[in-house]
């Protein structure tokens, strides 16, 4: 059902955990639906110095969360905002069609974390 790459990210998730002093935190999904993910970002000079995640959900939800941290880490905010759900799925060698909608939320979580970072920055001004 899943590609080897999905299973690899599910079994060996990259950058799993929290960033206690994160500059931005984004949470999407809902445990009622079966998927909930939180992405933490640390920003320095407009670049994502660190990206971590925590996820409740199926294999696809965990693998996409892991993949987004790899895709986003080291990128500028501008570049990170361009990462789409499709990019995440492609980088994982594809996802089953039924999972494309419900479990492929990682890009949204990253964008929410960046939004949170921007809001906090605004508030500090």
């Amino acid at each position: 059902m899943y590609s080897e790459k999905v299973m690899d990210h599910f079994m060996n998730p990259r950058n799993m955990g929290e960033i206690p002093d994160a500059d931005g935190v984004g949470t999407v999904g809902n445990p009622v639906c079966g998927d909930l993910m939180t992405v933490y970002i640390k920003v320095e000079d407009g670049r994502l110095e660190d990206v971590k995640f925590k996820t409740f959900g199926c294999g696809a939800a965990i693998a996409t969360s892991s993949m987004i941290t790899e895709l986003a880490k080291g990128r500028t905010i501008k570049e990170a905002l361009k990462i789409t759900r499709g990019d995440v799925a492609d980088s994982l060698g594809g996802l089953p069609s039924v999972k494309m909608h419900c479990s492929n939320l990682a890009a949204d979580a990253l964008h929410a974390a960046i939004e949170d970072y921007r809001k906090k920055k605004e508030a500090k001004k």
Partner: protein
Amino acid sequence: MRRVYMDHAAGMPVDSRVFEAMKPFCRENYGNPSSPHSYGAIARNALAEARERVAQLVGAEKPEEVIFTSGGTESNNLAIKGVAHRNRDKGNHIITTTIEHISVINICKHLQKQGFKVTQVPADKEGLVDPEKLKDEITDKTILVSIMYANGEIGTIQPIREIGKIAHDNKVAFHVDAVAAAGKVPTNVEEENIDLLSISSNDMYGPKGMGALYIKKGTRIQPILQGGGQERGLRSGTENVPGMVGMGTAAEIAQKEMESEGTRLTAIRDKLIKGVLDTITSSYLNGHPTKRLPGNANLRFSYIEGESLILGLDMLGIQVSSGSACTSKTLEPSHVLLAIGLAHEEAHGSLVFTMGKQNSEEDVNYVLESLPGVVKRLREISPLTPKEMLR
């Protein structure tokens, strides 16, 4: 790697004795039971023997009360639609429950569109239906009570005898979906006042695509398939002789081995349940602690999701099921778990272990060694896990 298959409710191996019995009816004895010549006679005799064996398993008085079908879903369709349409002149009310197999639920929905009224009696948090509550729903328009013998998912066994008596006393036809129960726990249509009983072959180590419906003599029913009039006109279509022979043999073996196998499976099931509940915090049993199918353990784990549990266990050679939405075609969690009062997020975290003949106590030990690590790893990944649990 050790291989521990504990998903028997989803699919079972065919017993080697069943396979051997079926073989000659594929390549040598391929005659049609309706043919008057000698090839037909061989098939006819084999069919009669198979029918007799299934009849004995369910306690039927006469073999001809057993009709072969393509499986549990067809048996349920024939029973419920067949009785409903045939008895339309008497009434239009059907009583069932909230925890039935999806086939029964969807058949009833279909009949509702055609003007039938359906009452779904609830089950309690352990999955038991209260016969008194069911009795209160009977009206002079009630033509059928349909309830499962045991739930394949949460394992709970219903008080069928009491419900059968209520249906009988009120002269309402009584259908029992015994797909998950037949061959595992004793079922007796005569003693339990059952008019129609659905069973499936693969749920007792017979071939897939085979089932049967017991129909008590005198039950008013009409066919759902029109054709050549096989199976007393109730199930037209050329007989699947190898399948029927296989199911008959499976029924005979199940009847012989039910008691010893039931005792053995109950012991390892209880060891699994106790082992999990004792070693994994925030784990719970779904269904009834004692009134449950011998090989069934349905457990749930807070803060994590069932499909990821399945994948994690599969990597260790263990195959199980889940009531999580992520493993269903509809992306909805198990309707059974919701019906017994679980929240969506609780239903997502359920795992169903269904053990069978090839499972041993060593298999249970292996699951008990493997599962805590999988649960721990997923809880570390989950944002829902309380921090103090991870220390």
